């Protein structure tokens, strides 16, 4: 046995101790020539001896801890209010922090579930704002296939991916997400299938028999987790084309996550070999694994020479594109990271306030117990022993709070999940942080975080009281009540209260700003009236009788006719796109104007195209500015179009617009039919971007053609019926036409509400935190003021005895409290001012230094805190001078 540290001596086991004593008895018996019993007697009570030996090893820490725990428990039982209050405060802090960590861990800290995720990047072209290319990396499929026929130099491997909504078009139909991916996809991510096989290059050749990989979830849900699922075929329908007989070749592992958009089925993209006859024109996403030692920045430089070639393949006027190569994780979380940090900052402040509050309570308790501690010090408890007692108390508080906090966290997480709108397929982008809620749970990682938080908090809040105890024990024992005592250094407690007030104000100010911003978001003029408008989306799967465009049109036209005839219907219209404020499905940068040469005129942003039937504008009450609305005769008559004001400004600035003919043209397939539309009217702008806070974009409403329709139709009905009645009515109408048809029915208001889900979530969380902080600050101030009054009872008594009025006395208490509040508020404003940069990006229509918001916060703070000192001031005013003096 070599040299061991003083602190890491190995404790012998009980068996070893027993054996050591038995050996002793045996040796004694042998040596003295007596029998075992006699030798045993000589040793005394073996059990007792062994117990003493054992105590040598455990005594110091375990016994002391038990003692401390016992002692703490006794003192809590004497003052349950203190213990309960402190535990509750901490439990709320722990609960909120833990629940938020569970939600945000995946956004901020947890590495994505791929091999060597640091080398995975999202790669593609970025477009200028409003251009056809989005602000996240995309790549045109045609360019991807032609330019990257071999892996580009910075990468080890590249894979394309896309995402569609599709139906499982067979018995037990189900809407799922399908993701066409390159056969290299899983290898790029470093993921292996759990069952079956991965895609092979032969699967990924244009025209090869279709195969698919299904997620673990789908496998369990649809195939009962049976291995026999491998080899079965499934009929899919993308809404544009059926994909029959897809053979399932593998199952993805249970923890698999798609990099950007969720999917249930992976299909080979079959983009290659390049065939000029195949219509390309979809913007897809590409992921790549960087070669070792290549940074994203370097990769961008290495790709630069290919840019002209890529751009040449893009449709004309897809200007201002540039390469972007960034970590895949960034792409996954997007803007959510910023929101996540904001929430983490807020909950950290709340936690800090809770800690300060409990430390303050403990200091107050120490002041009460100063005599007891003095006695303990006098009878020989060492300084460290006293300090340890304080630490043990805070750790036990923290531990108890941690247990309750875990329950709070569970409850909060459920609340968060309930606050998030029901998962809408493909609705990732605008849900932000909320899209990560589905996967959030209190798992080992979260528990470890909570445990660490509990320990650190326990240490932190015990530290100050422990130090003050050590310092106090340096002073003479049994001081008189009015001399120095552990908690009697008021400076410390005032500092704590001021800090608390400052932090609270920062939170209050932040939440006031977010509430104002939310108010602005919710009250954004959308440009239309969505109240009492109910929408129904119907998908005609190709497995049914709607193979041909005219069958589909017949269905939708009948649907519209019946909806119009239904009780309560004011007006109804069909459209190809979701109802406003959702953007139209297609857009183009290329609108031909009759009489103008193509390619003339300044480049303009993408113009959205929405196909509508007459009564669309009446249904949404979109006001007309020029010309006329669509008439019934326009549907099936000469093609007519209506522009919004932005589109009019872009296309016909300062010119006559009514009666002009236009032809929307461009990359997006649907309206690329060489059709000329006559402009008959101009409407005001309505919100039609990705979020309601996006400024309205130019848009052209073209009249739908009769006798032909795609697979998806969106019916909007303005009705006088209630939402539930309208829902039932529409469902019945759809069922009359086809009882097996899947439809989704929703109110426009409901859709708008979902669009504001993230700001709502953030604002309500922050407001809850701020109110909690305010409550804690009030409690802290109350306790300090009460303590102060208690401390100065004799002085106050003397003052009253010599003629001070109760009013003067109360005023003194209040004015003193007002000074701390002012100090805290000033500090808080400074804190808030520093924190605003982080906040500004989340604000809409309000500046981070908005005077109204900050004034409101300061006023609310001052009001609540002054109310908190009312009772102590009242007490001070009613001190009985005789009793106060006698108490000495």
């Amino acid at each position: 046995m070599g040299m061991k540290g003083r602190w890491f001596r190995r404790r012998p086991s009980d068996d070893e101790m027993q054996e050591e004593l038995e050996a002793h008895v045996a040796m004694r018996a042998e040596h003295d020539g007596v029998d075992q019993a006699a030798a045993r007697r000589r040793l005394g009570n073996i059990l007792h001896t062994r117990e003493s030996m054992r105590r040598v090893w455990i005594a110091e820490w375990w016994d002391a801890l038990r003692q401390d725990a016992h002692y703490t428990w006794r003192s809590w039982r004497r003052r349950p209010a203190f213990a309960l209050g402190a535990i509750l405060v901490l439990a709320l802090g722990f609960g909120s922090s833990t629940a938020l960590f569970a939600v945000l861990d995946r956004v901020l800290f947890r590495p994505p579930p791929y091999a060597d995720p640091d080398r995975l990047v999202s790669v593609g072209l970025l477009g200028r704002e409003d251009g056809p290319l989005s602000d996240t990396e995309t790549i045109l499929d045609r360019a991807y296939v032609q330019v990257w026929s071999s892996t580009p130099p910075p990468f080890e491997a590249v894979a394309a991916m896309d995402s569609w909504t599709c139906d499982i078009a067979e018995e037990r139909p189900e809407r799922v997400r399908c993701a066409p991916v390159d056969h290299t996809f899983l290898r790029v991510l470093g993921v292996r299938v759990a069952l079956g096989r991965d895609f092979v290059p032969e699967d990924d050749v244009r025209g090869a028999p279709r195969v698919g990989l299904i997620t673990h979830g789908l496998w369990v849900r649809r195939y009962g987790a049976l291995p026999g699922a491998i080899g079965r075929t499934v009929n899919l329908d993308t809404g544009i084309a059926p994909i029959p007989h897809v053979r399932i070749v593998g199952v993805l592992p249970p923890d698999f996550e798609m990099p950007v958009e969720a999917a249930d089925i992976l299909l080979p993209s079959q983009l290659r070999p390049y065939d000029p006859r195949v219509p390309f024109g979809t913007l897809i996403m590409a992921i790549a694994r960087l070669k070792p030692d290549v940074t994203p920045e370097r990769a961008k430089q290495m790709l630069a020479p290919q840019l002209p070639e890529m751009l040449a393949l893009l449709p004309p006027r897809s200007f201002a594109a540039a390469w972007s190569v960034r970590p895949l994780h960034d792409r996954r979380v997007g803007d959510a990271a910023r929101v996540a940090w904001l929430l983490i900052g807020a909950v950290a402040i709340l936690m800090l306030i809770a800690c300060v509050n409990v430390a303050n309570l403990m200091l107050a308790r120490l002041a009460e117990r100063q005599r007891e501690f003095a006695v303990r010090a006098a009878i020989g408890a060492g300084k460290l022993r006293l300090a340890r007692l304080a630490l043990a108390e805070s750790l036990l508080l923290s531990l108890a709070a941690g247990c309750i906090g875990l329950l709070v966290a569970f409850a909060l997480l459920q609340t968060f999940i309930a606050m998030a709108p029901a998962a809408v397929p493909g609705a990732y982008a605008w849900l932000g942080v909320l899209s990560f809620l589905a996967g959030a749970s209190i798992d080992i990682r979260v528990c470890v975080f909570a445990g660490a938080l509990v320990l650190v908090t326990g240490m932190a809040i015990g530290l100050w009281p422990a130090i003050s105890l050590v310092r106090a024990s340096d002073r003479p024992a049994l001081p008189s009540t009015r001399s120095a005592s552990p908690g009697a250094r008021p400076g410390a407690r005032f500092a704590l209260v001021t800090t608390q007030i400052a932090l609270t104000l920062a939170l209050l100010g932040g939440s006031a700003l977010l509430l104002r911003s939310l108010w602005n978001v919710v009250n954004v003029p959308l440009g239309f009236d969505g109240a009492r408008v109910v929408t129904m989306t119907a998908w005609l799967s190709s497995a049914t009788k709607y193979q041909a465009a005219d069958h589909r049109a017949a269905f939708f036209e009948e649907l519209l006719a019946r909806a119009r005839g239904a009780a309560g219907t004011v007006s109804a219209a069909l459209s190809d796109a979701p109802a406003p404020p959702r953007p139209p499905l297609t857009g183009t940068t290329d609108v031909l104007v009759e009489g103008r040469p193509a390619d003339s005129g300044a480049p303009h942003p993408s113009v959205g195209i929405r196909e509508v039937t007459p009564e669309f504008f009446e249904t949404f009450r979109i006001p007309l500015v020029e010309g006329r609305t669509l008439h019934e005769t326009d549907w099936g008559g000469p093609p007519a179009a209506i522009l919004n004001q932005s589109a009019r400004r872009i296309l016909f600035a300062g010119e006559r617009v009514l009666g002009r003919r236009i032809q929307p043209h461009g990359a997006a397939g649907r309206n690329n039919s060489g059709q000329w539309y006559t402009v008959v009217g101009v409407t005001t702008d309505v919100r039609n971007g990705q979020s309601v806070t996006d400024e309205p974009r130019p848009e052209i409403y073209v009249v739908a053609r009769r006798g032909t329709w795609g697979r998806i139709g969106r019916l909007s009905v303005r009705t006088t019926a209630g939402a539930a009645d309208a829902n039932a009515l529409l469902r019945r109408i759809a069922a009359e036409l086809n009882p097996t048809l899947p439809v989704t029915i929703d109110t426009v208001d409901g859709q708008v509400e979902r669009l504001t889900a993230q700001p709502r979530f953030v604002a309500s969380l922050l407001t809850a935190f701020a109110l909690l902080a305010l409550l804690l600050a009030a409690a802290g101030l109350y306790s300090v003021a009460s303590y102060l009054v208690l401390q100065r009872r004799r002085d106050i008594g003397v003052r009253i005895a010599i003629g001070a009025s109760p009013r003067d006395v109360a005023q003194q208490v209040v004015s003193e409290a007002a000074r701390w509040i002012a100090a805290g508020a000033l500090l808080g404003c400074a804190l808030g001012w520093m924190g605003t940069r982080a906040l500004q990006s989340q604000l809409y229509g309000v500046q981070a230094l908005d005077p109204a918001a900050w004034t409101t916060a300061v006023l609310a703070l001052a009001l609540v805190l002054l109310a908190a000192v009312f009772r102590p001031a009242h007490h001070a005013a009613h001190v009985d001078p005789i009793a106060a003096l006698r108490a000495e």
Partner: protein
Amino acid sequence: MAHQENPQAALELLILKTLAAGPNHGFGIALHIEEASSALLRVEEGSLYPALHRLDKAGFIDAEWTVTENGRRARVYRLTKDGRKRLKDVEESWTTLAEGVKRVLRWA
């Protein structure tokens, strides 16, 4: 170990002194103390082992299971570097104390 109760201090000194002569097991230590003191001191065996473990825990002695010459497994203790220093200190203070006590006794 600032506050050392006297009986324990004496036992500790005897143990350390015994081990200074070489590694030994508990019984050997007890025997050695008895023999060296010509049976004047009889070790309280019930407190010998807790004392040994206390010293082990404090790092003054190390313990190791070995087999004795007559084939018995025994826990054998040996002095550590810290233990040697400790022995020197305790011996000194003990001699001082004994000297003091002797003088007082002479006086009385």
